[in-house]
């Protein structure tokens, strides 16, 4: 009995030790600066931008996004981008902002909890959610509570549908799907297209449906359509086999990069090397730990932001982001940055102040968003329709030697 107790004590001690040792290295490597701990911050209501002192009379901006989980790269990027914009704006004087990002782990239920935390904190303007599935849930609350929202990157049509005070900085899914089909046709990238999409995900199916409609309109031939789900995203041999047997020369992948990385690997193992065309969810594949970037060589994607662009605004943003986070910002970071600036310009134009009520701010911002023109990192002369969708021009990108390069 003594011996067994000793063993359990030793085991517990070992587990503790492992916890401490790895905990340190873990939070060091993720490089998240604004939230105190990285992964553990999920359920902690007081995380967010704890260490940036809030200026007096600041307008409280809240947002939810996957700061941990499989889609963490998007949430972290959007938050970091938004934080850079907030810091810049606060340094200018005038309208002041305070930013609070909460983790939703790309899960609708957690996102609603995070949203409620933000409301308790006193959120006056919302950045919605970063990814589509949670955003569909939280924007319903935005609409009910009359809290103005502009989401950096939740692209599903259901995010803005029927909600007069919810706007998107990114393309809506229908636009992504049809723009992709148009781009493939214009650039003559492929003649026989295969599509693999995730049929339990609103983002993936939304893009797929409009891609299919547009492709039929343009006469682009889709030779194979296969699906997978959250629970079956390991083995893609059947989907790849179907595309190969149908003689597809280009596979369209409306999905996030994690399953895409498996598809590249398994297609290579099967000795099949078509062209790949992705959407904004493909952004981030190059920073996936342990990923062999040569597998993604030649992968094309449509994204509104190009970190290689040479205009001053992009260069300054990229430099600041690299300094703070040690990596090149992706599209989501730029979207987050643009959202804050769009709110800033609208608030300035409408004379919004922090002591106004949430619904007053909401009405003033809605009026501005539907009438003004905004120039940001992700596009010039952006305008918003009453339905909340943005209109701007996409840029084609290709992965070359492990980096994103503009195609045009």
């Amino acid at each position, binding site marked *: 009995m003594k011996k067994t107790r000793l063993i359990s004590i030793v085991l517990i001690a070992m587990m503790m030790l492992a916890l401490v040792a790895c905990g340190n290295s*873990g939070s060091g490597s993720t490089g998240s600066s604004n939230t105190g701990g990285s992964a*553990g911050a999920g359920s902690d209501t007081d995380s967010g931008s704890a260490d940036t002192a809030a200026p007096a009379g600041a307008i409280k901006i809240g947002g939810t996004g996957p700061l941990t989980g499989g889609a963490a790269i998007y949430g972290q990027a959007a938050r970091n981008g938004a934080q850079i914009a907030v810091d810049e704006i606060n340094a200018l004087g005038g309208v002041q902002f305070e930013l609070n990002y909460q983790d939703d782990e790309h899960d609708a239920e957690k996102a609603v909890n995070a949203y409620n935390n933000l409301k308790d904190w006193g959120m006056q303007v919302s950045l919605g959610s970063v990814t589509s599935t949670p955003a569909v849930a939280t924007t319903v609350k935005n609409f009910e509570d009359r809290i103005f929202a502009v989401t950096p990157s939740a692209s599903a049509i259901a995010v803005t549908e029927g909600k007069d005070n919810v706007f998107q900085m990114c393309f809506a899914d229908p636009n992504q799907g049809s723009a992709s089909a148009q781009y493939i046709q214009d650039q003559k990238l492929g003649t026989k297209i295969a599509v693999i999409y995730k049929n339990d995900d609103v983002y993936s199916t939304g893009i797929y449906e409009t891609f299919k409609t547009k492709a039929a309109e343009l006469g682009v031939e889709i030779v194979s359509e296969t699906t997978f789900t959250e629970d079956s995203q390991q*083995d893609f*041999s059947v989907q790849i086999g179907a595309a190969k047997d149908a003689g597809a020369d280009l596979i369209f992948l409306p999905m996030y990069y994690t399953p895409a*990385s498996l598809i590249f690997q398994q297609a290579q*193992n099967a000795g099949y090397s078509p062209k790949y065309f992705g959407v904004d969810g493909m952004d981030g594949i190059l920073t996936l730990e342990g990923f062999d970037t040569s597998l993604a060589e030649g992968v094309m994607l449509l994204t509104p932001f190009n970190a290689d662009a040479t205009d001053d605004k992009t260069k300054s943003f990229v430099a600041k982001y690299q300094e703070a986070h040690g990596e090149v910002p992706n599209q989501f970071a730029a979207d987050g940055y643009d959202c804050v600036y769009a709110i800033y310009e609208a608030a300035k134009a409408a004379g919004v102040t922090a002591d106004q009520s949430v619904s007053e701010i909401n009405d003033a911002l809605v009026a501005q968003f539907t009438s003004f023109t905004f120039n940001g990192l992700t596009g010039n002369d952006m305008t918003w329709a009453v339905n909340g969708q943005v209109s701007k021009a996409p840029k084609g990108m290709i992965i070359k030697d492990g980096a994103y390069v503009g195609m045009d």
Partner: protein
Amino acid sequence: MSFLSHLISGVSLGIIYAIIALGYTMVYGIAKMLNFAHGDVIMVGAYTCFFAFSRYQQPPLLGVALAVVVCTLLGVGIERLAYKPLRAAPPLAVLISAIGMSYLLQNSAQLLWTSNPKVFPSVVGNGSVKLLGGQLSISVITLVTVGTCIVIMVALVWFTGRTKMGKAMRACSEDKGAAQLMGINVNATISMTFAIGSALAAFAGILLCSAYPTLMPTTGSMPGIKAFTAAVFGGIGSIPGAMIGGILLGIIEIFGKAYISTQLSDAIVFIVLIIVLVVKPAGLFGKKIQEKV
């Protein structure tokens, strides 16, 4: 030809379910409890190997050995902390404890290693063997998995059938009380079972992630559930049953995807399971034990 290549995919997927199912069935057979944390022990094994092999550049065999040691200790630790105090409790309490353990492991992994996905480097490389003039390819990892699975199965059958410890395990599985009266240390036997089951989990984790190289804290949970299904399908408690069940499940899943619908593949798997259980409630290889009154 595509039939053959689907068959190969099915076997490669199924053999991984089989190797996970061996761990489930082993523990169920002896301790009569469902160790739902098994899938998460697999994940811990995969992370251990990932850190040794990829982060610290150790040779793959050392990574595998380390993973086996860590998983064995973890398995025995889990048994001691979460299951042993509940040995006299109703089975439902143990089941809930196992589910709790599963979440504890998943969330601890998320805390320790963050939930950003990592790409697991295959311990045997990504080569493949071409057959019939390159029309068919079998990846090396599948061959290694099949080999490992057969070795493990034969070793387990030999162990439970021929060794003293193995006989003690079978005695415990039939009647704990009687086994104890015969002088068998039931607690030590059950701990031993967990040690073996968890060591198997380490192999399963490494082979799973070598074949499907995304590693996340939730990596083990879905394959764990599918493998549990495979174990039930083959007859839970039966070692060859777990292997055959796993392979059949993999083949059904791939064929369902290929010939019926990619949308319904999981539904098809579970419909087959329901049919099998309706026709043969003990599973394909399960023994129907007659209770003496």
